């Protein structure tokens, strides 16, 4: 990707973040005339964490989507379709509702453990260079299993309000998160995304096949483990705070590769920026959609992402049939 294009994306990101802080504008405009302190508090305490979380979670989904697509050599691998986010949600629910640990660090650890287990299970079921059908079936099975176990964990929870409490979070939400919560997602996600960026070269070498990557000096087993661990840590920490958000990890890498010459590893950086932009946009749509209430974020990303997924499947089928 050219420097000019990356600069444009980054400029869009900054502009989007500023718009996100100001949106919806009329209440803030009215408050600025009457009580500037309250307006500042709303922006810093409510809108800033929401905007930061959209940037961080979206960026992490984009980066990890690109990395695991490169690892599995498959454009349909993404944190949600591989069951990673479902595994993370299961880990967090078990930690909070069955084990009774609701501290942010415990939730993050539970979600990271769940995401890691889901990715290892995927690797065992689908193999390192998975056929599309095998990958999707394995991901579907893991998602279904994790979803059923999450429901079971909530049903077995001592709290009678467990389903009600968890519903909004499970659908993915950035609402009412504090700066402290944002920090719990941000630190692991930023570190993971930065370390994933360092794997861009080795993941590009995997394009040539495992054997050639080894002959070029890359430890493929270690590369696989590093990618899985970093994805689990970054995505798990974000899921613990914001719940499961789908399709960003699928869509962002596809755009990143189209803009940048097709290298799967080198797409990690641009996919991170595009993922942040997409989730920021989806969050703004959820706030300003004319339905009289704030829509769940996961619903917006699914409504935008699912048609894209269908297009991608049709496009792959068309390419294979030629």
């Amino acid at each position, binding site marked *: 990707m050219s420097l000019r294009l990356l600069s444009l994306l980054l400029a869009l990101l900054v502009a989007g973040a500023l718009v996100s802080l100001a949106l919806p504008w009329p209440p803030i405009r009215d408050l600025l005339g009457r009580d500037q302190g309250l307006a500042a508090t709303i922006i810093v305490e409510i809108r800033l964490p929401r905007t930061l979380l959209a940037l961080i979670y979206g960026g992490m989904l984009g980066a990890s989507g690109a990395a695991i697509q490169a690892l599995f050599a498959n454009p349909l691998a993404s944190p949600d379709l591989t069951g990673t986010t479902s595994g993370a949600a299961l880990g967090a629910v078990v930690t909070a509702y069955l084990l009774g640990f609701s501290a942010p660090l415990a939730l993050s650890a539970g979600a990271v453990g769940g995401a890691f287990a889901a990715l290892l299970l995927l690797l065992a079921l689908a193999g390192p260079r998975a056929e599309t059908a095998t990958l999707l079936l394995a991901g579907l099975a893991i998602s279904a299993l994790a979803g059923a176990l999450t429901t079971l964990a909530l049903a077995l929870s001592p709290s009678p309000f467990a389903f009600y409490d968890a519903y909004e979070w499970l659908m993915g939400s950035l609402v009412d998160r504090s700066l402290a919560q944002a920090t719990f997602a941000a630190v692991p996600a930023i570190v993971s995304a930065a370390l994933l960026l360092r794997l861009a070269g080795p993941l590009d070498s995997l394009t040539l096949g495992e054997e050639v990557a*080894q*002959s070029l*000096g890359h430890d493929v087993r270690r590369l696989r483990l590093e990618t899985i661990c970093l994805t689990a840590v970054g995505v798990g920490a974000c899921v613990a705070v914001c719940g499961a958000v789908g399709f960003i990890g699928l869509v962002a890498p596809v755009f990143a590769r189209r803009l940048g010459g*097709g*290298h799967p590893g080198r797409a990690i950086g641009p996919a991170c920026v595009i993922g942040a932009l997409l989730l920021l946009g989806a969050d703004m749509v959820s706030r300003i959609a004319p339905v009289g209430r704030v829509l769940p974020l996961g619903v917006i990303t699914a409504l935008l992402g699912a048609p894209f997924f269908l297009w991608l499947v049709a496009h792959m089928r068309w390419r294979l049939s030629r």
Partner: protein
Amino acid sequence: MSAPEPHDVVASDLALPGRLDPTALTLRPGELICLIGPNGSGKTSLLHALAGIGQPRGEVRIGGVDPRSLPPALRSAYLSYLPATRDIAWPLIARDLVALGDPGAGDMHKVERVLAQLGLEKVADRRLDRLSTGERSRILLARALVAGSRLLLLDEPTANLDPLWQYRAITHVQHLARREGRVVLVALHDLDMAARCADRLLIMNQGRLAADGPPNELLDSPIMASVFGVERSADGWRPSG
């Protein structure tokens, strides 16, 4: 055998458990060395062991250095490996794929030179999935040659190529061995091509090196019948016995 020269590739006790018995080998620059053997005889395993694929045992030295211990940025100057499979997971632009063969340098002049040497200038800007099988095979060969590695390990470099490009590709590889002093080991199934182009022949059988010598001597010897079950006649190769 004479003592190794500084540019020789010296392998000792080289083995892949279950695939390749311990093998000692010295490969010299200036000659095209062809590796033949029936299916499953260990040709690819020997190339893998030399390239450091699959955790081989033993040692490989090029000028006193074991290239398999070097980091990626330095390793491609020492060795390059072309696998027999031509599958590529992502439809990269052909030129970009060739550049992946030289991760340490990023020198596009080298990329353009090897593209020209293999007649690929016109397809260099196309995506791999828009190329013919033969063009894709040449692109992958260009990827293996771009770094100018001292040791070239090429598994079936002429597979999928038409007769003209089979001739041109093997002649180019011969040139790299004889004129540029690279150590070139080429695995081939085509015995006639091995007879035509090899300066030295290695014959693999059941995971071990069964014979090593001049091609004309080995191709007319009884080892061809015992290893391949064929013998050379005036009409070409035919089943022995």
